[in-house]
């Protein structure tokens, strides 16, 4: 790659001069991508934990309606007065569960957490392109978390118009309790989140495109980096639509505008507006909302590809096609949003076009699946905890992807839309799959992040409870969808068309959800316990090929010591014929015959002492 080299000579010097010393600049207002990654990751996991607890409470309501749970009064004093979850509280929990999981857990941890940690380390940079912006990104995210959490405590309750916040329900305070101050805070929080995400995404894309180590061509980047930067680009192009939507909805709420509101009569009161359209919000929302699900799945796909290749000790199958598929899915994700609106009242002929674009996504998705299977084929599979999650990802992605072929086909969507079939579909394909990517990624990179190994035995217990329990929850939900159970129902007892034996399924789902929830405590204990007193991690515990494993553990500020690594080969040289070890790191020159001492070779190439022609003392190896 041809790039210019301007004023980089002083870069490493600057890095060393600016090594933060005080507690505040080192751990709190840090500009180091690894610290920011951990900040993002831990904040997101805390938010995810809150979102999970919310799901238990409404799942209990669905399995044992109006069951008395006095202890929950401590958590939700206003919505659990008599010890049973009341309707406004139920809708608040459902709304906040979706919002928190999608934005504050999954988006934040995949781009802010993994993106921050992996991009500089995997492309061989010292840090992000704009470290200050990176720090700001985290603090805006933190602020958005504070605002959304605070909204749980306002007297009218948090937003309760669903995570999609469709107006007029979300626009008129009188329409539902959560559409008071809670909805304002929801919109403000989302706007702050979008600011954070934009600052982060600018960094991820810029860093990957401009700050790669010498030899790290685009087609030598690990698939994780590809997945994350395409996701970041989707965020940059799609989030502004929701930002605009949020601002317009605030105007509709407070300044009497009519972007989304026609003339209404709510509870007998006339609300005089001009001819705004509630469908406009849906278009703006889903213009972000659909790319958003790919923002969650593409990085998880990248992580999974990385782990599968490493665990199978075999090159990823069809690397170029994998990159092409990521790009194709990213592009297509912008022209399919209307499949959320087949029965919304949108012109039906538009539905026609969206069916075609939506189903085309099945092609790159299927190719990726075949390539993951192809990666396992003739491999030498090690069943480490990350590998268990990566294999689980293949299963959940296929299961959830296939049900998309029902919902993406408008005629079939008519009976299934807004039933539990949809809830099942998106939880399996985007919830479980990206969560499996995240867990796999945490177990895999934890040693590099913290310098310690996570406990394998408890990791495996965590995996099995999560995997089996999650299918117990979400596979079962498909049946509720067939039976026609609508989503967002507080109870279903007044409907005769829902057969009484459906109750059995509701109980299976809730019990499974509680088991999966309990399993996450194992993860939390393992995470914290291993960080404090886990086994010391070697530099390259998984015998992996990519650059981050060539950095010291945990990597110091500036990542690479005095000289930047130089890349000589693609990231998936596992089981190369003739090589004595079954992996060859990217830093090993092709002309150097790998011996049993491969690791030392790699370090030597990396090291200053050997004075490799490509690495000069300035450490300025951005360019190739």
């Amino acid at each position, binding site marked *: 790659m041809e790039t210019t080299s301007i004023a980089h000579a002083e870069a490493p010097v600057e890095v060393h001069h600016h090594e933060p010393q005080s507690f505040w600049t080192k751990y709190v207002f840090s500009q180091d991508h690894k610290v920011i990654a951990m900040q993002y990751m831990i904040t997101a996991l805390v938010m995810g934990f809150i979102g999970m607890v919310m799901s238990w409470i409404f799942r209990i309501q669905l399995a044992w309606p109006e069951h008395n749970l006095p202890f929950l009064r401590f958590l939700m004093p206003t919505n659990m007065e008599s010890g049973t979850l009341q309707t406004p509280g139920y*809708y608040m929990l459902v709304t906040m569960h979706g919002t928190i999981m999608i934005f504050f857990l999954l988006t934040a941890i995949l781009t802010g957490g993994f993106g921050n940690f992996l991009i500089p380390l995997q492309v061989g940079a010292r840090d992000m392109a704009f470290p200050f912006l990176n720090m700001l990104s985290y603090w805006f995210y933190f602020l958005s978390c504070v605002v959304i959490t605070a909204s749980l405590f306002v007297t009218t309750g948090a937003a309760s118009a669903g995570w999609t916040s*469709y107006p007029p329900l979300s626009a*008129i305070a009188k*329409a*539902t309790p959560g559409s008071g101050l809670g909805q304002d805070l929801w919109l403000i929080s989302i706007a702050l989140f979008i600011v954070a995400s934009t600052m982060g995404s600018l960094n991820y894309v810029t860093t990957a495109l401009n700050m790669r180590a010498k030899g790290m061509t685009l087609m030598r980047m690990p698939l994780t980096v590809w997945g994350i930067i395409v996701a970041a680009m989707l965020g940059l192009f799609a989030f502004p639509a929701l930002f605009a939507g949020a601002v317009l909805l605030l105007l509709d709420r407070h300044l009497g505008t009519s972007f989304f509101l*026609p003339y*209404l*009569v*709510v*509870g007998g009161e*006339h609300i005089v507006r001009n001819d705004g359209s*509630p469908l406009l919000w849906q278009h703006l929302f889903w213009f972000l909302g659909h790319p958003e699900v790919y923002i969650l799945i593409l990085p998880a796909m990248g992580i999974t590809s990385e782990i599968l290749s490493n665990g*199978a000790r075999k090159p990823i*199958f069809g*690397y170029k*096609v994998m990159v092409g598929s990521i790009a194709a899915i990213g592009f297509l994700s912008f022209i399919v949003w209307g499949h959320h609106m087949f029965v*919304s*009242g949108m012109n*039906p002929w538009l*539905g026609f076009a969206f069916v075609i674009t939506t*189903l085309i996504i*099945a*092609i790159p998705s*299927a*190719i990726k699946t075949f390539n993951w*299977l192809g990666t*396992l*084929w*003739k*491999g*030498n*599979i*090690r*069943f480490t905890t990350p590998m*268990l999650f990566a*294999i689980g990802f*293949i299963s959940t992605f296929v299961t959830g992807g*296939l049900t998309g*072929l029902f919902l993406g086909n*408008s005629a*079939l969507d*008519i009976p299934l*839309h*807004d039933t539990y079939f949809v809830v099942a579909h998106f939880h399996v394909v985007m919830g479980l799959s990206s969560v499996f990517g995240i867990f796999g990624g945490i177990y895999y990179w934890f040693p590099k992040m913290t310098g310690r190994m996570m406990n394998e035995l408890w990791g495996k217990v965590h995996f099995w409870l999560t995997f089996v329990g999650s*299918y117990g929850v979400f*596979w079962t939900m498909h*049946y509720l969808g*067939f*039976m026609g159970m609508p*989503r*967002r*129902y507080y*109870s279903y007892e*007044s409907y*005769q*068309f829902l057969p009484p034996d459906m109750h059995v399924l509701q109980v299976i789902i809730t019990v499974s959800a509680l088991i999966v929830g309990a399993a996450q405590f194992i993860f939390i204990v393992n995470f914290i316990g291993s960080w404090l007193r886990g086994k010391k991690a070697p530099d390259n515990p998984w015998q992996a090929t990519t650059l981050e494993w060539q950095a010291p553990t945990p990597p110091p500020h500036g990542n690479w010591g005095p000289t930047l690594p130089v890349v000589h080969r693609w990231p*998936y040289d*596992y*089981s190369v014929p003739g090589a004595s070890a*079954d992996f060859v790191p990217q830093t090993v020159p092709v002309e150097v015959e790998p011996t049993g001492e491969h690791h030392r070779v790699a370090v030597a190439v990396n090291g200053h002492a050997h004075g490799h022609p490509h690495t000069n003392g300035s450490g300025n190896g951005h360019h190739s």
Partner: protein
Amino acid sequence: MNSSTRQALWYALFILIFTAIATYTVANKTWWFPPLASVQGAEIDRLFMITLVITGIVFIAVHIVLAYFIWRYRSRPDAKAAYITHNTRFEVSAAATVALALVILVGGGTTLWTKIQSPPPEDAFTVEVWAEQFRWTFHYPGADGRMGNVDVRFISDENPYGLDPNDPYAKDDIFTTEMHVPYGAPIAVILRSKDVLHSFFLPHFRMKMDVVPGMKTRMWFTPTQAGTFEIPCTELCGVGHYIMRGVLTVESPEQFNEWIRQQTPVAMSQ
């Protein structure tokens, strides 16, 4: 049995058991759609079954292959993985197979969608619907046989359904809390909302359409069964969303005429 073999065995077994349970309960229709009651629903169900067979084959095949690979290629001390980077012919033919299956699904889907979304037949029986938090109201023409105009702007305590005071056809219109339609004709439904979004769902007829304030939305279908069916709301509309339940009765034209005769026109009740 070493650790790798044990792990592989459990993993492969779980995947096979899960696949078997999933396949059995779906093929057996253990938990299934409500009984079918419309012509359009029959066509939707047919396309559903075609899609189910195609996706089912992929689901089963991928999981069996996955289980087999997990078992067959589990790590062994002296084994080494093959160095295979890609296989263009395999990838092209896999993509082509998927594309072919998609042609069937898109072809079937768009054809059926066109049919369902085309205007209702001339002889369709029309019912208008008002949706509001948290009930459905059904609007029929009076003795003059013409439906009067309604608009949310006309709504008042005296005129709860927003009938146009200047429309002569509106004088004798009938509003009911239950929906009745005569059996034998296609049924066209025109949907309006006073306040927020709702969605008019007929599970037995496989029909659904959102109700959007500020615009009229439509659906039509042809019942194949007489009987009483429920109408759940399927778009979150507030705290009473889950109890926004309507009832549709499909009955013989004689029964329908008798029923509509007993309803009081709104203008007379004022």
